[in-house]
């Protein structure tokens, strides 16, 4: 007992003693350090930078009085508003724009679902049964039986385990990406992806690498660069998820992604693939299943396919499908799914009906029309056509003096001649600036003659626009 007590006291004494042994300068340095830390802490709590004395109330009031904010939006926006064409009819094969009945080559009604009487009947029956709104998110009494039916039908059609539907096309991919990709994760993405993907990536706060449009060699370059980084920091690499996000058929260029090569790269570099098929679902592939069918690859290699119900299906909303393991997560983590009212049941009923029309002839008709239009457009020598021959969306640009005003004027001229076409619209906040273009859209309702005569008309109005003086001389 005594012994141990003694050793206690001796130890304390040693500690005390050791303070005497420390050189004096050491103490001074430590003291300075402590003071410095206190100073940092103090300056943080008062929040005034550099200056020790805090501002007086009067000085603050003066600063507040002096501060003049910018206007919320630039003044005078209302005066420079460009006129938007207004529609007064159904938007089917024909459409009445500003009072003029036009053949419609502008809206993305690829399969002509809009205006089909049976689909309208389905919508009406749905209103009579369920009303219009669902009055709640899916979790809280906003799930209607038609939602479940539709999800099942989509999953079955796409031969996937599970599908999930959103109430808005844009919100689908924009919610799906941040559900998986978090801060610190890495996303590889094509430069020309649609705006919804760009927003989804921004919302995820992940690191993003954009590769040149459809340039998979550039992608490999970026992947290799990342692999070098990973080798330097394997600990971080082990918890960093990698995703590749791209579109099947690019709305901004009409090009098709080389999916088989991506899948090859996927196994090598271990990233997951999210494929946005908003514009290729119901368009590419023998049965309209999109890119995976078009290339005949195992659909399970693509971790998630996102589609839209707004174009080929002629309704509203979007869907994502894939394995249950992946998709189910969105039912709690997909923001646009969890925190928003569910799809109005009438739109779900319309899709269910529209899917009954899916058949091989319809898709081959569409592809055929796309090819006809492509060929006809390529023959015009005053424009360039950007699109794959199989794409129903063709971007047309003037070879000389291409500008948005010029294209708008051409659209107006075409409208005067009973043809509705439109300039592809973009906001000023696109990450990579877009060259203005007319986005011509082909659908199954058009006959060969109609396509050819429309293209001819476009050629004429372009001519009329670029050399108006000649018209006058011809007349005289």
């Amino acid at each position: 007992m005594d012994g141990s007590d003694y050793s206690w006291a001796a130890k304390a004494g040693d500690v005390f003693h050791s303070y005497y042994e420390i050189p004096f300068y050491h103490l001074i340095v430590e003291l300075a350090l402590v003071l410095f830390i206190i100073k940092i802490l103090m300056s943080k709590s008062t929040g005034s930078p550099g200056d020790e004395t805090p501002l007086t109330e009067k000085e603050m009031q003066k600063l507040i009085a002096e501060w003049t904010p910018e206007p919320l939006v630039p003044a005078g926006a209302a005066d420079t508003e460009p006129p938007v064409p207004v529609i007064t009819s159904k938007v089917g094969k024909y459409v009445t724009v500003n009072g003029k009945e036009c053949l419609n080559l502008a809206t993305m009604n690829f399969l002509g679902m809009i205006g089909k009487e049976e689909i309208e009947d389905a919508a009406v029956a749905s209103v009579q049964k369920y009303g219009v709104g669902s009055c709640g998110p899916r979790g809280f009494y906003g799930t209607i039986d038609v939602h479940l039916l539709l999800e099942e039908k989509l999953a079955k059609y796409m031969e996937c385990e599970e599908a999930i539907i959103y109430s808005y096309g844009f919100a689908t991919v924009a919610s799906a990406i941040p559900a998986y990709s978090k801060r610190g994760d890495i996303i590889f993405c094509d430069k020309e992806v649609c705006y919804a993907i760009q927003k989804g990536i921004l919302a995820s706060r992940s690191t993003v690498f954009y590769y040149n449009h459809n340039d998979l060699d550039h992608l490999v370059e970026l992947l290799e660069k990342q692999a070098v980084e990973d080798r330097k920091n394997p600990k971080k690499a082990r918890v960093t998820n990698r995703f590749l996000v791209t579109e099947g058929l690019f709305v901004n260029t009409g090009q098709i992604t080389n999916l088989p090569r991506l899948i090859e790269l996927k196994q090598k570099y271990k990233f997951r693939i999210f494929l946005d098929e908003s514009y290729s679902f119901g368009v590419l592939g023998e049965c309209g299943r999109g890119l995976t069918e078009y290339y005949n690859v195992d659909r399970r290699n693509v971790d998630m396919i996102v589609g839209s119900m707004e174009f080929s299906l002629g309704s509203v909303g979007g869907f994502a499908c894939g394995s249950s393991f992946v998709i189910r997560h969105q039912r709690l983590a997909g923001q646009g799914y969890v925190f928003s009212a569910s799809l109005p049941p009438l739109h779900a009923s319309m899709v269910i009906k529209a899917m009954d029309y899916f058949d091989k002839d319809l898709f081959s008709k569409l592809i055929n029309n796309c090819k006809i239009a492509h060929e006809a457009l390529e023959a015009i020598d005053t424009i360039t056509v950007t699109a794959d021959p199989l794409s129903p969306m063709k971007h047309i640009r003037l070879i000389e003096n291409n500008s948005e005003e010029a294209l708008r004027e051409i659209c107006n001229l075409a409208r005067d001649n009973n043809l509705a076409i439109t300039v592809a619209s973009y906001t000023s906040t696109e990450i990579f600036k877009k060259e203005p273009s007319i986005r011509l859209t082909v659908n199954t309702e058009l006959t060969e003659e109609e396509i050819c005569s429309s293209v001819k008309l476009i050629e004429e109005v372009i001519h009329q626009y670029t050399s108006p003086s000649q018209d006058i001389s011809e007349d005289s």
Partner: protein
Amino acid sequence: MPPEERSSEAFDETEEVFANNLDSTTNGHLPVNEKVFEPEVEYDETFEDPPFLSIMSAYLCLFLLVMFGHIRDLLRSWGFDKTMDTSEFGNKGFVPLYNDFEAFYTRNVYQRVLHYWCHPLAGVPGANIEIWDRKFGSFNENIRLQDTKRNYLNIGSYNYLGFAENNGRCSEETIKEIRSRLGTTTASPRSELGTLKIHEELENLIAGFLGKDACLVFGMGFATNSMNIAALVDDGCLLISDELNHASLILGARLSGAKIKVFRHNNMKHLEKILKTSIVEGQPRTRRPWKKILIVVEGIYSMEGTSCNLPKIVELKKKYKAYLYVDEAHSVGAMGKTGRGICEHYGVDPADIDILMGTFSKSFGAAGGYIASNKDIVAHLRKESHAQVYSSAMSPPVARQILASTEAIMGVDGSGEGQRRIRQLKENTRFFRTELQKRGYILYGELDSPVVPLLICSIARLCAFAKTSLANGLAPVVVGFPATPILGARARFCLSASHTREQLQWLIDLMERCEPVLGLKLSSRHKQKANS
């Protein structure tokens, strides 16, 4: 070309009076005492913490859940437990897709009780609903719909004015729209070839209804917030947000690139402090003055039932030259003498609020959202808003439902039905709130708010409540962590004009009957009052 000229020149049909008998020049503005509302109430709100014992039991319950979760996960990793298989096709050697606490919580807590949510409805989400029965496999996997259904009293849908209906004028009009007017959808964004006549008509009507100059409608309420804030503020701007703002507002703020500061829920002192120090200090690091400051609040908070202290916020906004964005998702239609929302409720001039946002998925029984503001802001958004430029326009049947229900609310359809419903909702709300409060339940929010959260505190009790209610034919919304704070598990009742007094009385009686088992009367204030 000024816009007024444009619309009349473009085609002469706008010259006509709209279907609602308002001609386009009056814009449906409020009559006589233009815009300025009489305040209905002063700002008032109550909050009460649960008693200590409840707090302890809530923590204990959570602790047990997490512990069992870990045991399950351990058994899974050893291959004894085959539930919630977490394997993925292909993808060998990939970084696991989910590895955070969220996934753990979903797998081990949410999965056990998931049958209290996502009930499949067999019809209109009105006051009475039919729900399909479901069968659950082990660990709630393999959910199968049965072909039997049962009736419930619906106190969960956001059907404030009871416009979720499949008969009556609204649905008749909607059907007419589909059949013989503008059809079903457009497949084109507004800025291309998706602007229909009905959109202009609707925007005019809503602007007039709210007492604003102009309005813009969108296909989804969530997207209205998440996609428009970025067009208003950006880098170098400050966005001050209430801590309980809806996910869509938070996302919109994040996407905008502005600096975000958060003030404590409805705490005006804190808001003022942030405003003051922010202006004085300027931007972080560069110390340049802020370009602009935007305050973002909600009219009624959907999980708390509280309303923002609008008069005070407007005062602060003016004092500090900030802009104000009010999300009226739950308050438009449901608050105010004539359903014009939180402004009318507090007697605030709508002109004092720069941006009035709201959704059509609640009181109007439709879908979508709107932004009402001055002409410049709306014109700017028309050009720059992502929802206008990249996503499909609002569909005609939905737009027609909104038009018809707004006309009813405004009384221009001549039936007086709208006004009756607004009164009924208010009566229901006051009756229900006072009855529950009298009985000693802890409710959140103010007297007139139709969102009535009942504090339950622990998750176990929450599930017990859900189970008993469903067994007795009541369909309530129950929410717990992570949607609420850990101790904030609550049931939420959304009152509707379509509830009758008998139904509400039945509900109260039901709760009274179940009280000995559930023990939901947590209010200690009430007990003190009763004793004294």
